[in-house]
């Protein structure tokens, strides 16, 4: 609180960054301990969580006031004009402080209270259980076992306690291998394909330099090969570009020498590093954020940013991985440099292609817990949760979500969840409202006592899963068991609903998903009504033949039949919603409607928005 000098400023203008007519909303700006809140004259509220703020800028004073531009990590950009420079300065300074916390304990999750008791909280944390997940894969089995080598984080601090390794790999081999791998991240199992008996394994780069060898590491890789009875050779995928991997050799790191390892097939796949990805996204946002953008500038900017090329590279790597398992029955070992960025992307995306379970709402949570959270993707560093090294920040996880989104576009029926689910998860990797994504590895999370002091995101998403259902999902389609995406260039497109999530004028004004969802529900309700009525008729007829028809019975039928009426009302509501003030909620609001959300707003988009658009849209054909 000591950072807040001004809590309320009136007569603030909010500009629409894509309006050509410089239209603006006037309202009041409030600064709370956790949020910046703007309420305009139509009582529409815009909430901005301090943790979401990536950059605050105070621009040069104009005649109408002092412009304050806030860029958020969820790609919202707001442009305020504060009448008095003093107020602007106060808010600017407060936000600078509030958006960059120095200690984990100051993050929102440690003060956020959804009014649950301890046992509810604990149950929430138990919702995703990785022990169960390995069991689901069929582990342990005759070839793979749970290793207790890292039970106390002694071998690798950034790995989880529970790790699956080949049964024939002894502890000395594991320890020896870990000493030969960057940050001690030795090869362990990430996913096991029960039918093919092939595994996806992951690790970091070997400390091979120009010639170093490690017999234990070679043994461990051989053990992984041998754990697959169907195929003698295995793939080692280095997800880096060859040049980067070679440069690492000078620093005593590098990649596996095929001559030293028996039966490996070594492959580079050329995904760029976190720094390239960071600047690529920056370029993308610069392009998409420019005003009065022409079509050709947009496409040349998109090409120049290289973002979609990177998305394609990650997807291609995952396809390579999935094919190695499906077509060749071969196990695959994936690594990059440290094995927590590109490796997480490729392993998780590859598993998603192979296993339909990960394409369900629950399975996707499990996948993120397993390949990202437990294996030490450095969320706090990559998302810049704390005031730290900006060079550690990189949109690696965002990229993963975008790869998944591209798959949902190509396979509209293969995913149980919809786009809103992906956007909501993206929202919360930055919000620091839940404990899941705080910290950089499991050990750190345990030290922070996150499970005691914060809440897990997953039960909240599951509670609202209705909003995240894909109405076209076909869980039984055999054709969609393994996804084989086509990565021709035109299948990669700009994800408008991510990067312009809050620029509503750029969105489709009507949502197909919501309407289909409603239709589906109405169909179910109507079918149920039909059944109920039929059984009543039957009952009725029986009674009639029995000669016990009474007036009461007749009346008992009547109140049931208007079921149709309610269903029709439902339809009217969805097609012509009442025009009410739109409410955009950023991350969360103290009023506790955190998820008000994307899906809702989407559904309101129907004619109601069209009519409100009437006031702002332009005729630009």
């Amino acid at each position, binding site marked *: 609180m000591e950072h807040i000098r001004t809590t309320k400023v009136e007569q603030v203008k909010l500009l629409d960054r894509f309006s050509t007519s410089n239209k603006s909303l006037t309202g009041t700006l409030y600064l709370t301990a956790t949020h910046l809140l703007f309420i305009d004259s139509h009582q529409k509220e815009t909430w901005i969580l301090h943790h979401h703020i990536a950059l605050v800028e105070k621009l040069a004073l104009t005649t109408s006031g002092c412009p304050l531009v806030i860029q958020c990590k969820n790609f919202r950009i707001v442009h305020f004009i504060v009448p008095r420079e003093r107020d602007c300065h106060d808010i600017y300074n407060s936000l600078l402080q509030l958006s960059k916390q120095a200690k984990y304990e100051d993050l929102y999750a440690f003060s956020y209270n959804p009014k649950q008791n301890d046992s509810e909280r604990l149950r929430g944390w138990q919702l995703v259980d990785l022990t169960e997940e390995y069991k689901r894969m069929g582990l342990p089995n005759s070839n793979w076992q749970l290793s207790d080598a890292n039970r106390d984080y002694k071998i690798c601090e950034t790995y989880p306690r529970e790790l699956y390794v080949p049964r024939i790999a002894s502890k000395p081999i594991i320890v020896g291998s870990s000493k030969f791998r960057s940050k001690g991240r030795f090869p362990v199992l990430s996913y096991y394909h029960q039918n093919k008996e092939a595994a996806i394994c992951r690790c970091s780069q070997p400390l091979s330099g120009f010639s170093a060898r490690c017999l234990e590491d070679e043994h461990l890789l051989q053990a992984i090969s041998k754990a697959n009875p169907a195929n003698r050779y295995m793939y080692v995928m280095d997800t880096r570009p060859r040049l980067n991997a070679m440069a690492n050799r000078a620093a005593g790191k590098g990649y596996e020498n095929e001559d030293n390892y028996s039966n490996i097939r070594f492959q580079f796949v050329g995904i760029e590093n976190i720094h390239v990805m960071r600047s690529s996204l920056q370029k993308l946002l610069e392009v998409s954020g420019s005003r009065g953008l022409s079509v050709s500038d947009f496409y040349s900017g998109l090409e120049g940013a290289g973002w979609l090329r990177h998305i394609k590279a990650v997807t291609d790597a995952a396809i390579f991985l999935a094919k190695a398992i499906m077509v060749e029955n071969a196990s695959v070992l994936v690594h990059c440099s440290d094995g927590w960025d590109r490796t997480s992307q490729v392993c998780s995306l590859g598993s998603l292609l192979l296993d339909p379970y990960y394409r369900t709402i629950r399975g996707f949570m499990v996948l993120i817990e397993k390949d990202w959270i437990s294996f030490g993707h450095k969320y706090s560093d990559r998302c810049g949760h704390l005031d730290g090294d900006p060079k550690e920040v990189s949109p690696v996880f965002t990229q993963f979500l975008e790869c998944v989104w591209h798959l949902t576009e190509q396979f509209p029926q293969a995913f149980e969840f919809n786009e809103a689910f992906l956007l909501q998860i993206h929202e919360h990797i930055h919000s620091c409202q839940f404990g899941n994504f705080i910290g950089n590895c499991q050990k750190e999370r345990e030290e922070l006592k996150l499970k005691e002091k914060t809440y897990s995101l997953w039960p909240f998403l599951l509670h609202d899963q209705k909003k995240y259902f894909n109405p076209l999902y076909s869980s039984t389609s055999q054709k969609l068991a393994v996804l084989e995406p086509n990565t021709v260039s035109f299948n990669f497109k700009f994800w408008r609903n991510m990067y312009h999530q809050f620029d509503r004028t750029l969105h489709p004004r009507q949502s197909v998903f919501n309407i289909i969802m409603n239709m589906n529900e109405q169909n179910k309700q109507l079918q149920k009504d039909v059944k109920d009525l039929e059984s009543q008729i039957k009952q*009725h007829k029986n009674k009639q033949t029995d000669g016990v*028809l009474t007036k009461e019975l007749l009346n008992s039928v009547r109140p049931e039949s208007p079921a149709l009426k309610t269903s029709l009302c439902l339809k009217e509501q969805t097609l012509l919603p009442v025009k009410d003030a739109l409410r955009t909620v950023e991350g969360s609001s103290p009023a506790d409607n955190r998820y008000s959300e994307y899906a809702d707003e989407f559904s309101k988009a129907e004619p109601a928005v*069209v009519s409100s658009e009437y006031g702002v849209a*332009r005729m*630009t054909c």
Partner: protein
Amino acid sequence: MEFSELIRTGQAQAELLRGPEMPPLRGTLCVTGHHLLLSPGPQATPDLWLLLLRSVDSIEKRVAGDAGTITLRCKDLRVLQLDIEGVEATLDIARSIEALSSLESVITSFPFFYRPKGLRLGESWHFHPPERYYKRVARETRAWRLSEANEDFSLCPSYPRAVIVPRTVDDDALARSARFRQGGRFPVLSYYHAPSGTVLLRSSQPLTGPQKRRCAEDEELLQAVLAGARPGARGFIVDTRSAQAAKQARMTGGGTEAKSAYPGWKRLHRPLEREGACILVHGAEGTDSTLLVTSLAQLILDPLSRTMAGFQELIEREWIQAGHPFQLRCAHSAFSHTRPKHEAPIFLLFLDCVWQLGRQFPLSLEFGEGMLLALFDHSYASPFGTFLCNSEKERCLCEVRTRTHSLWSGLNQPKEQRKLRNPLYAPNPLAIWPSVEPQSLRLWQGLFLRWTHPPEPSEVAWEKVWQIATDQEKTEGSQPTDSASEPQP
């Protein structure tokens, strides 16, 4: 005229490759007056494969050994490959296709021979778009009248017989205004916007020329438009050309309306914000980008034009009757080797815009992508007569209405509906303003990648949408009957 003169060979054995996802077909290849036929052998499927020769855009032949290959690139962007036994046969077939696919004569084209079962000649030609539309306008305002000054196409050869003009302007004035406009296209009503009482007009450029000529009747006509609209109404002349291009047009006799000559009207060369004003749209000839703008504006503003029937009427009225020269513009498509100046995919541009609109308002159009694809295909090559010729005058000369079938009668058959309709349609009474930021526009994959990358998973998904929507209709429909079957006491 005898087609047989152009057919060099009767038949040949061939194999047809139709693209990545389709199995090859093998059988007897045969060229007829209007079609290329492939009849599979008796053991194979009995289906006959048929291609309208008119839809061939370019043809390439290669021979090697005693076989040849013909590559046909079609106007609907399909690429077909025929592997033919015999060099002579290959060359003969190629020559026959070349000759028959480029026939210019309208009255020997296939629509004049096409007699499908279940359709009657003259059916669905009953559209009289200007007349029908005038009835709608007349219910709202008395300021306009239907003029038959162009009954014999003498005022304007590219206008229909009847046009809607301000009530206070007589036919003589129209004739003078016509002489002042390129191709005689004087300002006529395109759309009456009842909620605001304003109108959308279209015309061609005025023939001001380097001497800055004027025409009193033309000026009076536009004055009458403002007088007939709500009091104090202003007008905008939207010139679809750049200011520079419009200025240059003066050197060749064209030009723009002088500001001083048309008080109350303001000329623009850019889109404008919503104003509640009357609008006159023109480019140079007024048959291309002008129609693009006026027809799209109606889709955005007018809920009726977004229905299946309304959209068909819009295309009849604003494209076909309004004199878009389909015959010239759609003579060839993307694969043609020659690029004459009169060819241009203006109508495709319109369809793409409508597709973008449909993507942004997926519930507001009663027709779906299938309808737009069908219109694209038929505008380039069709067994129906609807897109034949360049104007109403030519269609009358060729007796298109009595001697060919209307595309609408074909499309409105019940069996076609699932392909053409949008199952999610819900009437939307409001204007649908699309976003035109580049981030909001997409490549129309369904058209441009239709043959090379058929989006199979999305097609299955679309099928599912249909199923859900029809389930809904069924259950909703069946319920009242169930409750009605309650036993009577």
